[in-house]
């Protein structure tokens, strides 16, 4: 087991290098000058830029300042050396270390995704079990159609529809349409503040969770159905085990594989966030940060976002394989 773990961890290194090389090359072979873009985005900001005419010399000075004057392979190696010490450099746009900017924007995303995971697991598995046990009945058919429909509905349709029908004085004005807190929420005591925050997170969390919910309930339904047909469940029933116990203690335990798989799928978005959902609900989380980094050609920020997302995906896959082996003794990596 230790050998397996070591091998997997070592194989992560070339994978991460591959991902960062591709991202780096894509950014750098693209036409356009980040130095010139930095000028327009900080109109009248730096003293160098006050000079009016943007001469070639100024651009060259700016490039040297940002380290963009060296050949691309050299720049990449410099970047790798820095990242070895967990230093992602300084954001071109915020003029702050990338870590600090990320630390500012990570909380909304983390909150949304932790609530999402709790919601998905609390609802999808019981739903899947209920469907499998009542296979072919009205409940099963209705919810199967509903989850199929949810699975095919894009968040960029459901999100705006929630805004239209639930945050609209013309229909129901039940929820706030954007932001994380109401105005002057800082003055509130902790629990009213928490309530206000949760109230603001209802719609984003709903939006973030329904896809995973539909997928997980579908998977647990079909996994459970397969096991309910198995001989060992019939044996358990024959020797007098209750239906409840046969489902939960025998069949469900053998249907955990999809439940783990979806965990590995959600983990990257835990930090990465969803660009679309954060745009719809005007939440300044990690997705928003990554999207703006792309718009502003903030190279260090883009590299950091891609690297962190890739790293989390790798960890998710590793955890998934380890959990498979831990929970299912038939799976072994020796």
């Amino acid at each position, binding site marked *: 087991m230790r050998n397996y773990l070591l091998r997997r961890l070592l*194989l992560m290194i*070339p*994978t991460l290098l*591959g*991902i960062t090389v*591709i*991202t780096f090359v*894509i*950014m750098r072979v*693209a*036409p*356009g000058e980040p130095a010139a873009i930095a000028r327009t985005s900080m109109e009248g900001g730096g003293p160098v830029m006050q000079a009016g005419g943007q001469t070639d010399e100024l651009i060259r000075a700016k490039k040297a300042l940002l380290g963009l004057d060296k050949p691309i392979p050299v720049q990449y190696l410099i970047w790798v050396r820095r990242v070895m010490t967990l230093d992602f450099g300084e954001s071109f746009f915020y003029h702050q270390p990338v870590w600090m900017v990320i630390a500012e924007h990570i909380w909304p995303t983390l909150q949304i995704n932790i609530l999402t995971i709790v919601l998905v697991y609390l609802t999808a598995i019981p739903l899947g079990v209920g469907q499998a046990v009542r296979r072919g009945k009205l409940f099963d058919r209705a919810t199967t159609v509903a989850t*199929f*429909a949810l*699975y*095919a*509905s*894009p968040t*960029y*349709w*459901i999100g*705006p*529809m929630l*805004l*239209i029908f639930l945050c*609209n*004085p*013309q229909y129901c004005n039940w929820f706030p349409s954007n932001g994380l807190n109401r105005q002057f929420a800082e003055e509130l005591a902790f629990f009213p503040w928490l309530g206000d925050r949760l109230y603001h997170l209802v719609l984003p969390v709903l939006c973030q969770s329904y896809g995973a919910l539909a997928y997980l309930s579908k998977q647990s339904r079909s996994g459970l159905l397969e096991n309910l*047909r198995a001989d060992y469940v019939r044996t358990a029933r024959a020797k007098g085990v209750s239906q409840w116990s046969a489902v939960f203690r025998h069949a469900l335990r053998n249907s955990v594989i999809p439940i783990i798989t979806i965990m590995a799928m959600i983990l*990257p978005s835990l930090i*990465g966030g969803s*660009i*679309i959902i954060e*745009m719809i609900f005007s939440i300044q989380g990690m997705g928003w940060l*990554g*999207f703006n980094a*792309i*718009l502003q*050609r903030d190279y260090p920020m*883009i590299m950091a*976002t*891609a690297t962190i*997302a*890739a790293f989390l*995906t*790798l960890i998710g*896959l590793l955890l998934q394989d380890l959990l498979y082996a831990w929970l299912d003794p038939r799976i072994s990596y020796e």
Partner: protein
Amino acid sequence: MSDVAVTATDRPGEATRRAHETYWAIVRHQFAKNRAAVAGLWLVCLFFLAAIFAPFLANSKPFFLCDHGRWSFPLFADLTSSDLVIFAAAGCVLLWWVAGRVVPRGWFGGHPWFGMFFLFAGLFVILSVAIELTVGERNDRTDYRSLAGRPGVRAVFPPIRYSPVETDLAIRRTPPLRLPGHYLGTDDLGRDVASRLLWATRVSLAVGFIAEGLAVVIGVALGAIAGYFGRRADFIIMRFVEVMICFPAFFLILTVLAFFGRHLWLIMLVIGLTGWTDNARFIRAEFLRLRNQEYGMAARALGLGWVRIVFRHLLPNGIAPVLVNASFGVAAAILIEGGLSFLGFGVAPPRATWGTMLNEGRENILDLPWLIILPGLAIFLAVSAYNLVGEGLRDALDPKLREA
């Protein structure tokens, strides 16, 4: 043909009836029994018809116009070269299908459809080059709708009398079913929503099919190399697959489009280039399994070349999981394209796509809800249709479910 067909015909009652059926005939039979999947297939066909015949369904020009005895055909005269290329593609596919049924068995090595693919692909390329070379710019700006209202003039218009790009600020923001002719209302610039929805079908289907087609070609090629040759090729390709799996794909696609510009071909290319990994993994797994089965070993023992073994012996028996995955992949590509357009990185305006319409609708979300509801519904229907077809295919190909 494969072991799958053998298990399917194992039951004594059906064996006699099915003994002569090929594997794919059985699959088709199973698919036809699944009503939801058949409905999905019909929906896909409907979307295709809408995409191909969009100029005949929503256009500001009449099919024919009779002005005091002088006849003209403005709609046909104004078809652009891309319209004609689409017709040529549809015609070639139709001819290919008909030819595959008509040509006697035994021609083209017993696989008429596979054998004639390149024939009709070549015909399509020749036709489209000819069209691009001969058809010039179209700029017929006559207002046929007011012309048709005059006495002595007769005209027959398509069901929707508005083109997707013509603006009319006098009737902007009309809700659906309010103005005659504008069945689904107008948008912020007074463009007809129904017409835009219909024309947008083209972009979505093109992105879905071409991007996923690219993903299938790359995935099958790399998966086949990895699975057939194994060893070092397998190791390298699987490491590459791992890199691509761990990529934050949507983020990467956005980066590419933001940095290189919003071109339709670039959107298809990047979606295809990031979406092939599942196909490669499926084909590799199938090849690892099939290579060491008796007929795979027999083919090698006979000394056949690897091209023949891969394409004639292994691929036809290992393509099933890729077909299922491709169906879901088309749906995923449509979703991604919609998301890109929603964020403002889709095809450049004024061309309509469903995602772009959603993006435009976001600006006045509370006042003009139909600009969100209708294009989203179109995406939802298209994605559902492909998912239904994919699930139907999967169930039809799965011998375990067939016995249940």
